[in-house]
């Protein structure tokens, strides 16, 4: 396959998901005059910001032929940790010790815990050769349990106006969560396209043995990728917590599936090596538009799940058509 041909195929695949999105938007716009408004546009973007953060991390992992089922739980734990640090600090009555946290300290605390848990995922996967599906499945349970321990099963609420800005504020006419998601996407695009790390990620997913033989330290790359995904889940957790002004112990349940759906709709191959951040963003937008549209049209909650599943299926089938050689 020549370089030109490959370019054409990729463009065609990208075009397919754009077409799917346009068709979807057209249908909803015809049925509801409230859909194509500025307000609703921001609304959809703000709602998908969290999924975009998680999905970007998931894309990097899937490109290495891995998967991360723990992002929803890590999201909940890190959101709760940030909220807890901000509100209560750390108290050790036995040592008569109290550490208070500033907003920045609490945010860093959450993100550091997220990247450490992600790193631990990577460690288990590379060191003990545990399949990613199993290793991160274990982390899904562990992180959820840690969230329960940290919160004692109760939400942590009333976190103050400056923290609320992260999820609900506006900057230069654009919602803050959209800024955050935008920056995350740009950084990820830069990493995958312009850096050595990006090329290694594709190489590992394309053919792991070939990557090892060509001297790539695949364990190091995987550790980095899983840590990034953990940190991004933490960022998502902070946004969810800030939006609600409350860290919910059961936040993020099932988010891993939304993220995987966005990745798959975006045309990234679950066997690794093929796909792009741009595609995932398209996937997340399609899911967001669908969630928004079904509610705007007041579709029965019973039918919504059927429709969502069907649209995922159709988007992937169309995409497969575009990828045919």
């Amino acid at each position, binding site marked *: 396959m020549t370089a030109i041909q490959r370019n054409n195929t990729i463009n065609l695949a990208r075009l397919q998901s754009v077409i799917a999105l346009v068709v979807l938007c057209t249908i909803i716009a015809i049925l*509801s005059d*409230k*859909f194509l*408004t500025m*307000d*609703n546009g921001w*609304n959809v973007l*703000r*709602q998908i910001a969290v999924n975009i953060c998680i999905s970007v991390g998931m894309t990097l992992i899937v490109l290495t032929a891995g998967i991360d089922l723990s992002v929803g739980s890590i999201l909940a734990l890190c959101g709760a940790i940030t909220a807890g640090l901000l509100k209560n600090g750390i108290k050790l009555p036995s040592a008569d010790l109290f550490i208070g946290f500033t907003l920045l300290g609490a945010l860093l605390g959450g993100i550091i815990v997220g990247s450490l848990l992600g790193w631990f995922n990577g460690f288990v996967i590379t060191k*003990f*050769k545990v399949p990613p599906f199993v290793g991160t499945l274990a982390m899904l349970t562990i992180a959820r349990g840690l969230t*329960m321990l940290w919160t*004692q*099963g*109760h*939400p942590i*609420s009333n976190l103050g106006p400056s923290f609320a800005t992260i999820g*609900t504020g506006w900057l230069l006419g654009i919602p803050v969560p959209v800024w955050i998601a935008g920056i995350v996407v740009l950084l990820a695009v830069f990493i995958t396209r312009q850096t050595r790390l990006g090329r290694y990620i594709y190489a590992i997913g394309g053919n792991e043995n070939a990557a090892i033989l060509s001297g790539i330290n695949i364990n190091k790359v995987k550790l980095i990728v899983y840590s990034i995904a953990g940190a991004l889940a933490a960022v998502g957790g902070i946004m*969810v917590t800030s*939006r*609600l*002004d*409350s860290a*919910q*112990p*059961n*936040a993020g*349940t099932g988010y891993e599936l939304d993220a995987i759906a966005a990745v798959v709709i975006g045309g990234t191959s679950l066997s690794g090596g093929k796909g792009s951040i741009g595609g995932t963003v398209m996937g997340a937008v399609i899911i967001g538009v669908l*969630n*928004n549209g079904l*509610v*705007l*049209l*007041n579709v029965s*909650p*019973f039918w919504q799940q059927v429709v969502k599943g069907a649209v995922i299926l159709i988007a992937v089938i169309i995409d497969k058509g575009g990828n045919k050689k």
Partner: protein
Amino acid sequence: MKRSLPIFITLLSLLFVFTQCKQQKAKNGKKKMAVVVSTLNNPWFVFLAETAAAKATALGYDAKIFDSQNNTATEGDNFDNIIVAGYDAILFNSTDANGSVANVMKAKRAGIPVFCMDREINSTNAATSQILSDSYSGAVAIGVNFTQQLHKKGNYVELLGLVGDNNTWARSKGFHSVTDNYPDLKMVAQQSADFDRNKAMEVMESILQAHPDIDAVFCGNDGMAMGAYQALVAAGKATKVKVFGFDGAEDVITAIKENKVYATGMQFPKVMAETAARFADEYVKGRRDFPQKIPVAVELVTPKNINDYIAYGKK
């Protein structure tokens, strides 16, 4: 891999020793009560379970909480373990009115009394006694107040809980048994937000795009009421739209005091949990004549009587 096996076993043993530390203190001769709760993923049920366990401990029992994770099969496993471990009584919050009957019968056959809290099971000869929250009547009371507040006309939105949950429909039906009698009271949207605060905020944001001119929102629990309220704040409509919840959770009680949320249906998890624990204690000490069902009324909490209430109960 072979070399890591001893490490693995050591770590595993350490983990068990570590988590068992607390239980080690208990003396062997003590009687034991099990608290089986439908889920620990919701603060309301955490409160119910913790209160039951605390009451049992105060009465001199070893108490342990079992989480059924909203899954009747997991609940069955919990019951099996409890029967094998020889507990003296079970304080029980069921996952499903019909599905849980078999589990309770299992305990009954093993000679362990079961006391249901909050949620009913559809059998009158399985549990020793059922101390139940009357969701339907509570929702009727909310419906009446809702209709009055809206002067029998206006547009409203309903946020349902998990569509597969009994309580979702008990509350929705109770509410509609009142509001559906008023043709000028129009429900412009009915959507599910899974009892989840975040989902409720997102769903409400979208609904507000389609129906910017609503007068009130009825939510199947307090978590969703807080989520809906936050969406209204973001849209600048919080003062115009009245929010109604259900549960009596901490956030909403505070919000009613601050005139943010309008009303909620107060359930009494503390009363139910402590009654169940007390009954179980009496059973162990020989009492057998328990009423099959004790309904615990759900009380309407509004700005008028908010000062009589605290989270999950009365002052």
